[in-house]
C-alpha cells in the first residue's frame, strides 16, 4: 500500500472546495488518511471509489464530543482524518444523510469557524506590531522591520478576508430560513 502526500493550500473557509477535491482524489484511488497542519494531506492508494467527503468543525472550547462521534458513526460517516478541531468525514454508502439538513445548523458550523478565526488572528496583531517596533529601535536589525510590517499586514488582511467570506456565507444561509 503506497502513501501519497499532496499539498492543498485552499483556505479552510472554502470547505466545499476541499470536499470536492478529496472526492476527486478518491475517484483516482487516493483515500484520505491524515491531515497535517498547513495543508499537507496524506492519502493511501487503493481502488477508485465514489466516496463523499464532508468537513465539520467542533466548538474549540469543547473539542470532540463522544455523543457527536456516536451519532455520526451510526448515520454512516467514518472519520477519515482529524486536524485540531477539524473533522474530515467520509462515507462510501450512497444513502448516508448530510451532516446538516437545515440552514440554521449549517450556519452554526460557520459561526464556529468564525470564532476560531477570530481567536487565532486577534492575538497575532499586538505581537507582530511589538516585534516590528522593537526591530526598528534595535541597532543591528532595523532593516528587518520594513519586511515584517507588510507580513503582519498580509496576515491581518488574509484573516479579515476570511472573516468577511464567512459572514457572507452566514448571510446567505440566513436568507434561506423560513419567515
Amino acid at each position: 500500500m503506497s502513501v501519497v502526500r499532496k499539498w492543498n493550500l485552499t483556505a479552510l473557509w472554502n470547505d466545499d472546495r476541499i470536499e470536492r477535491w478529496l472526492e476527486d482524489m478518491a475517484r483516482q484511488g487516493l483515500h484520505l488518511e491524515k491531515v497535517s497542519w498547513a495543508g499537507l494531506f496524506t492519502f493511501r492508494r487503493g481502488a477508485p471509489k465514489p466516496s463523499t467527503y464532508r468537513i465539520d468543525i467542533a466548538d474549540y472550547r469543547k473539542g470532540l464530543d463522544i455523543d457527536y462521534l456516536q451519532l455520526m458513526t451510526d448515520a454512516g460517516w467514518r472519520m477519515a482524518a482529524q486536524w485540531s478541531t477539524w473533522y474530515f468525514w467520509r462515507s462510501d454508502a450512497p444513502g448516508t444523510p448530510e451532516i446538516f439538513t437545515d440552514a440554521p445548523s449549517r450556519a452554526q458550523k460557520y459561526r464556529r469557524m468564525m470564532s476560531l478565526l477570530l481567536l487565532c488572528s486577534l492575538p497575532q496583531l499586538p505581537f507582530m506590531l511589538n516585534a516590528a517596533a522593537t526591530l526598528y529601535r534595535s541597532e543591528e536589525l532595523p532593516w528587518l522591520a520594513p519586511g515584517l510590517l507588510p507580513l503582519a499586514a498580509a496576515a491581518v488582511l488574509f484573516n479579515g478576508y476570511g472573516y468577511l467570506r464567512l459572514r457572507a456565507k452566514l448571510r446567505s444561509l440566513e436568507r434561506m430560513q423560513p419567515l
Partner: protein
Amino acid sequence: MDVNRYLPLSEASYYLLLALDAPAHGYAVMQQVEAASGGQVRIGPGTLYGAFATLEKQGLIEKAGEEERRKYYRMTALGRAVVAAQLARLETMVTCGRTVMAHNKGEAA
C-alpha cells in the same frame, strides 16, 4: 407554563419530539422521523446533535439513560404541552387552507 414562546416548531423539531414519546437514541430518532414523515423530513447527525442540546436546554426533552455508548432522550411534560399546542395550530392551518382552496376550486370551474 407558557408554551407559545416555543412555537412555531420547525417541521424537524415537531417530528423529533414525537419520536421521543418513548425513550430513544439519536440514530433511532433519525430513522423514526424519516419513516413518520413519509421520507419528507430527514435530520442529519450534526443537525440532530445541535437540536438535542437546544431542546434539552429548553426543557422540552431530557436524558433517559445510556446504553452501549448511546444516549437516550425522552420528551418532558413541557415538550408534550408544546407539541399539543403546535398540533392545535396545525389543525387551524389545515381547516383554513381547506376552506380557501375548496372555495377557489369552485371559482375556477
